[in-house]
């Protein structure tokens, strides 16, 4: 084992441990702000993995997009909402947790068996390293042109949709009188809800 | 030449449905005119029909969806001719006998005509898929006819009818698809399907499938539960069409497709079918005796009478098959007159209860003419000589006794029981003392009576001169049995020869001996 390989191995172990620990924290901690910050750590460690794989561009993009945009947005969302709500403890919640854990473990076992048992066809080409940006650009304008352009339409429509969902609606005056009260709702009336239990009916 | 039978009623139905400003009276006239034209066209077909040709005549062919093997392919033989005639006649009569004060008359007449067109098409179809299509076409119109204009429990009855018939359609489609695709063909022409050579086991399974499918429609006994509900809930004209024509679609399908396509399997299953038929006859008669509602009684009588048809078909002799074919016609006419008269009684007296009805024969305050016709209808249904019912039943029994003595004897017992319940019916309703306190019945007008008079004339006339009916069906029946006999002998021989060599001779020889004698006997009847 050369020194470089040793450094690689150690940093892989460190990154992996960091990633798994942070990901577990995201799921298990009850304070959502902690979860959000830990998610940032997960993203950073993934970016580190990319660096190890000699994919510098992707690593940079990962940090810029996921940490810089997505994660910050999540934090903004959490802090703007900032609503405390105490949830009534669900009885026998542990049962659900155990079941979920079992399913997840099973899935993990299946996937690891699959990963280990499959003869992966590894590409023989050398990693392109720093030439990646040029190569990605070439692909974007040749064989990946269609998805690239389609993604622009997708982004446009996501933008439009986000504005629609977020904007404050004004209720136009030109609408006929009787529909003003129901504006921005489905024309179908909601049906009368049947109380789920007798207690509900009495209260 | 055959398309007008579908086209005239269909165009009439569409015209009625689209003509929004049409009054009830005018709708009725238009519907009657349409049905009348169809009837005249049918009469004209009789004049064009070539009696010497037992095959299909007046073929019409138009490619429709060749990828599926579905083509517009019509043809006419003796069996179809009689059925089409029955359909045209009963449609006209049912339209005539429908009340003039009907809710939503345009929809009613239009649906009736639609049913008539579909049924006529089904009787003429020479393509299995076309038959299936037209068989399913009448489903929804009939559902609506029962559900909108029916009596009490009408939606329940209509839904039951719909589900049973849809199930029968599904089974039939499965049978047809299997028949054609098992032979590696993509040809749903009836003639091709007739010529298939499937192994006997496959044939038997497919025939079983078709027997259940058509057995629901006929109906045969375990599948009959929709019948009393539907017949009773349906209004008079709809009940006439249901019992008079639609039930024939079942027996027609059974003979045309079951017998025609799988003669080997038919020969194999025939003994069981005969026993089944006899069981149906007895069951129908015994249950009819127990009824307190005259319409329900007539409905159950229908189960018994369709049993004769099946018995005739199972007997493998051309006499019996001729009998079965003519029995289909006579049952249609007799059931129609009975339903009409029962409807008339209900309309005038206001009840169908046997325990309440009494003394309608009373010449002054009762319904004498209606009662007289009811007596005639009952007698015809019970098979009193000189009327149509006797002739056809006699033909069936004469033909099948040679093959299946015991089931035939049981069926004859069933005829006796038929007489029993009709005597109960007639005795309670027509005779006895009319309670003067309640007997203020509206008069029956001639218009209301008219359909029954026509039907009674036909029943009487064809009872005296049966040859006029028999001659149309005979060539087809003979050709069907001819298709059946060589194979059936083979099958039976292969099946039973070691144990009972006598069985070899029974169907073939005896029937040939029996036929001339019976026909001669019939001709000398009047």
């Amino acid at each position, binding site marked *: 084992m050369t020194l470089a390989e040793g450094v690689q191995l150690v940093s892989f172990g460190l990154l992996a441990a960091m990633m798994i620990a942070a990901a577990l924290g995201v799921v298990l901690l009850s304070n959502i702000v902690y979860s959000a910050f830990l998610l940032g750590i997960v993203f950073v460690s993934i970016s580190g993995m990319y660096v190890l794989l000699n994919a510098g561009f992707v690593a940079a993009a990962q940090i810029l997009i996921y940490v810089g945009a997505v994660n910050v947005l999540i934090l903004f969302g959490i802090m703007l909402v900032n609503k405390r709500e105490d949830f009534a403890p669900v009885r026998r919640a542990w049962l659900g947790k155990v079941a979920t854990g079992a399913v997840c473990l099973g899935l993990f076992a299946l996937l690891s068996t699959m990963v280990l048992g499959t003869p992966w066809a590894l590409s023989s080409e050398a990693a392109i390293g720093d030439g990646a940006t040029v190569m990605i650009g070439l692909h974007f304008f*040749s064989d990946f042109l269609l998805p690239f352009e*389609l993604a622009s339409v997708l982004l446009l429509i996501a933008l*439009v*949709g986000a504005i629609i969902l977020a904007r404050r609606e004004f209720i136009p005056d030109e609408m006929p009188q009787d529909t003003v009260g129901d504006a*921005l*709702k489905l024309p179908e009336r909601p*049906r009368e809800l049947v109380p789920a239990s007798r207690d509900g009916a009495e209260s | 030449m055959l398309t007008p039978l579908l086209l005239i009623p269909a165009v009439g139905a569409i015209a009625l449905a689209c003509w929004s400003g049409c009054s009830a009276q005018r709708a009725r006239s238009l519907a009657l005119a349409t049905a009348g034209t169809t009837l005249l066209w049918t009469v004209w077909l009789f004049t064009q029909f070539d009696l010497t040709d037992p095959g299909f005549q007046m073929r019409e062919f138009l490619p429709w969806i060749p990828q599926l093997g579905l083509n517009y392919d019509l043809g006419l033989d003796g069996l179809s001719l009689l059925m089409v005639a029955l359909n045209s006649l009963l449609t006209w009569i049912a339209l005539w006998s429908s009340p003039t004060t009907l809710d939503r008359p345009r929809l009613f007449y239009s649906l009736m005509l639609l049913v008539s067109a579909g049924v006529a098409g089904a009787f003429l179809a020479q393509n299995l898929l076309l038959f299936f299509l037209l068989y399913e076409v009448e489903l*929804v119109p009939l559902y609506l006819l029962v559900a909108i204009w029916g009596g009490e429990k009408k939606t329940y009855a209509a839904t039951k009818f719909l589900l049973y018939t849809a199930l029968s359609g599904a089974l039939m489609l499965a049978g047809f698809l*299997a028949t054609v695709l098992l032979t590696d063909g993509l040809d749903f022409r009836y003639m091709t399907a007739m010529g298939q050579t499937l192994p006997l086991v496959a044939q038997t399974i497919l025939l079983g499938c078709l027997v259940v499918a058509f057995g629901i429609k006929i109906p045969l006994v375990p599948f009959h539960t929709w019948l009393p509900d539907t017949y009773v809930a349906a209004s008079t004209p709809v009940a006439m069409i249901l019992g008079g024509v639609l039930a024939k679609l079942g027996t027609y399908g059974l003979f045309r497709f079951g017998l025609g396509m799988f003669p080997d399997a038919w020969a194999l299953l025939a003994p069981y079918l005969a026993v089944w038929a006899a069981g149906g006859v007895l069951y129908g008669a015994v249950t009819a005796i127990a009824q307190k509602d005259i319409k329900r009684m007539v409905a159950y009588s229908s189960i018994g009478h369709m049993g004769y048809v099946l018995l005739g078909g199972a007997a493998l002799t051309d006499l019996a098959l001729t009998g079965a074919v003519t029995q289909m016609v006579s049952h249609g006419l007799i059931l129609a007159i009975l339903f009409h008269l029962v409807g008339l009684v209900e309309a005038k007296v206001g009840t169908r209860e046997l325990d309440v009805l009494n003394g309608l024969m009373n010449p002054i305050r009762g319904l004498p003419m209606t009662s007289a016709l009811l007596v005639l209808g009952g007698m015809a249904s019970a098979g009193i000589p000189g009327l149509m019912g006797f002739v056809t039943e006699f033909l069936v029994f004469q033909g099948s006794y040679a093959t299946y003595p015991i089931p035939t004897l049981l069926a004859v017992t069933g005829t006796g029981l038929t007489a029993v319940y009709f005597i109960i019916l007639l005795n309670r309703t027509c005779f006895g003392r009319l309670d003067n306190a309640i007997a203020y019945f509206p008069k029956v007008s001639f218009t209301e009576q008219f359909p029954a008079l026509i039907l009674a004339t036909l029943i009487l006339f064809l009872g005296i001169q049966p040859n006029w009916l028999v001659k149309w069906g005979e060539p087809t029946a003979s050709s069907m049995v001819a298709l059946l006999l060589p194979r059936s002998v083979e099958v039976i021989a292969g099946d039973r020869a070691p144990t009972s060599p006598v069985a070899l001779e029974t169907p073939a020889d005896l029937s040939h001996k029996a036929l001339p004698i019976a026909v001669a006997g019939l001709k000398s009847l009047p």
Partner: protein
Amino acid sequence: MDFSALAAQLNAGAILPEGIVIITLITVLVGDLIGGRASSRWTPYLAIAGLFAAIVALVYQWDTANPIAFLGGFNSDALSVVFRGIIVLSAMITVPMSIRYVEQSGTSLAEFIVILMTATLGGMVLSGADELVTIFVALETLSISSYLLTGYMKRDPRSNEAALKYLLIGAASSAIFLYGVSLLYGLSGGQTRLSAIAAQLAADSSDAPIGLVVALVFVIAGIAFKIAAVPFHQWTPDVYEGSPTPVVAFLSVGSKAAGFALAIRLLVSVFPLVSEQWHFVFTALAILSMVLGNVVALAQTSMKRLLAYSSIAQAGFVMIGLIVGTEAGYASMVFYLLVYLFMNLGGFTCVILFSLRTGTDQISEYSGLYQKDPLLTLGLSICLLSLGGIPPLAGFFGKLYIFWAGWQAGAYGLVLVGLITSVISIYYYIRVIKMMVVKEPQEMSDSVKNYPPMRWNLPGMRPLQVSLVVALVATSLAGILSNPLFTLANDSITHTPLLKAAIAEQAAAMVSHTETVETIAIAPQ
């Protein structure tokens, strides 16, 4: 690289219909920005015109000599043309029926149309996509637009709930699909084009590695979510009930057709190695969908939920065609989707019309409708009967073709389940018709008693009427005059090289299978 040579290689003309849709949607968007609210008078018609132009462009693409575009990223073969046609057509009928609905709810129309057209665009690209990245981006375009449409009535909690539910389940299924696709990428050593993946997989091993099976399962989970096959259907009833009805109409036809296009292309081209497995899985999905969809529909009281379950069941019928994998099988799928388009959209048009006039979609509220609105009654009856497969309507021929193809290929069990469940389906369709037609005047429901007189001259009503009549005429006549449609469906299969090869392979496999059976049968003697 020489630019002109590259341009020629890209063969960008293949996405001309998509280009037309994009241009139209941008014109609508910009026109609405400039014109303000007044622009809603012309934007829907512009959208319809654009979609129509896209159909015309599609017609010209039929049977092009060179269907491969974008260096193998997009395939404009007959199959993709026909599926893109179905999707555009469904959008074209959805736009006129949404005008009045959206106006009455007071939301802005132009954005609605823009998002709907984006969904259409996603579906179209998905039908032709021949490469994993394109597939995924197209799938997401379709999905995200659908989430937005579902939540369009944002003041209504039902719409919000539907959107959230759809978003969460949809995102999860997309993620699973993406995982499966990434496995394919890995298994093939870094290929993204479907044909290259298939070639690489076939070259690597004769028996399927376990990774391929896992990839298959994950991919099927994504597809089954899009076509709402049981057990991936849980979102359907709630989303259908809460979303604006025109959106439901599009989801039940356009989005489903895109899902089927994806299913055919992906499964047939990439997974021949595990073809037994995916046939088995789809058989299970089809049976479950037919049985559960039809049985649960019996108990529904809301029209939209009824149609939701009915659409699940209909997807089950269509899957029969996919499973049998013969020429007739694929052709019957295409044919059924074509007629399903008209009958289902017709049904939804009637539901929209009714809910616009009475504000409800409860089945019991339809009772006695025939007296107040014969056109609506006739339309809904015909569409429902056609869905139930009653002749001589279009749906009957569609079902007949599917069952015929299934039986011909020996899928007896599936066909029998289909036959029995379609008998069940007749029951719940006729229940609605019974409500409308059979009920006596005194049994009329309150909403029908207060039924406003028909005013077709209100803004947005005329297009609704037009789309109703179009759907109605197509449903009643497409069956009787179905020969051209049959030819179209058959040609779309025979002119597709991908399917031709697959069909030939399957036929060969079948023959060898029967031969082995025969040799086994003969051997003991």
